[in-house]
């Protein structure tokens, strides 16, 4: 009973919040946040890169193949966002499974306690 109470007070609250969502919704939401975070980070680093190379870019802008440059920037962006999204997907899939397992264990112990009390 004590273990159940401790679980309810601490980890159980967080696990119940996680399991209020369907698996696909929870993981999808986290991956979406990760994609937004990676996009914001990439944008900021890109702006810093432009400021760093401002003079060179302004001098060479008419000589550059802008479509090629755009393609390489897009490829870099998609790789960074893709890798981070995969990592976040793996982490939150594991967390969702762990929360589900812990709550299943909690409910089975609760059921046993209920059976003990009804006797």
């Amino acid at each position, binding site marked *: 009973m004590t273990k159940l109470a401790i679980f309810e007070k601490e980890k159980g609250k967080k696990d119940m919040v996680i399991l209020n969502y369907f698996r696909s919704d929870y993981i999808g939401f986290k991956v979406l946040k990760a994609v937004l975070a990676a996009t*914001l*980070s990439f944008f900021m680093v890109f702006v*810093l890169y432009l*400021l760093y190379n401002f003079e060179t870019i302004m001098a060479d802008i008419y000589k550059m193949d802008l479509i090629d440059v755009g393609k390489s920037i897009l490829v870099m962006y998609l790789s960074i966002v893709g890798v981070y999204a995969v990592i976040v997907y793996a982490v939150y899939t594991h967390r969702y499974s762990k929360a589900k397992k812990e709550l299943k264990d909690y409910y089975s112990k609760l059921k046993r306690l209920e059976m003990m009390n009804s006797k």
Partner: protein
Amino acid sequence: MASLLVVKQYITNFIGRYEVYLKPLGKFLLAMLAFMTINSKLGYMHKIDSFAIVLIAALLCSVLPTNFIVLLSAVFIILHMYALSLECAIVVIVLFIILFLLYFGLSSKDGVSAVMSGLLTSMGIPYIMPVTMGLVGGPTSIVSVGCGVMTSMIIKTIKANATALMAMETEDMTAKLRFVIDAVLDNKIAILMVFSFAVTLLVVYFVRQLSIDFSWPIAIGSGAIIDAIIVLVGDLSMNSSVSIAGLLIGTVLAIVVGLIVQFFKFNVNYNKTEKVEFEDDEYFYYVKAVPKRTVAVPTRNVKKINSSKKVVRK
């Protein structure tokens, strides 16, 4: 050994009984240490480089969640960088946003680890953190340890180049920005440390979970050795200036702290291991039961014996 176990039980009971007071006190002390270290290392903004401000900030952190220590430390650093130069502040803000997005996305519960990593890196002994976090945390703790190490290394780099930066007052913004970014990107030691700590943490984490005898000591030893090897090889190949004495002392401390953590968290008696098999409706179970080392804590019973007093009524 028995006396050590009794001491451990006393400590555990003490912490359990007074946790309500010890937790805020711990956060207060950690915050004080973090802010005072930042002020001593940087100290460019005199308004926040005062004991009163540090005390107020630390008192605030003691009642708020642990991540506030991380956020306020970042604010202190940004303010000092702004006092040094606007370009420094811009670069540091961008770096912190990236680190925070990573940290809050993957490892937001490891606030203490992030702050301790930064503090230990500034003291020159960061090697304790990956071994400890491999034992008590998980793979996502790489992010919190990495953030702490990166922050401390960036502060060190900018401080080393501060004089040159202050001499560039007449230069334009892009020149100063380029100087700061070059200084930050040239920091090979930071990348080496983060890579080494990531590998160490993963090695310690996966080895300690193996169902072999003495998995924790093996994890601690192998993690510390792998960390030292990667740092040494990286130092030789990149020609960076890692302190060998610091590395040796840090490695030894990492092993000592790891063993202390093991004593408190995973103290088992492998001599009395039992292997059992059983089944239920769904599964066959092959269980290896390793008993924990426990000892009964002696309790003191105080018995008061008073002589009976006769009351005489008139």
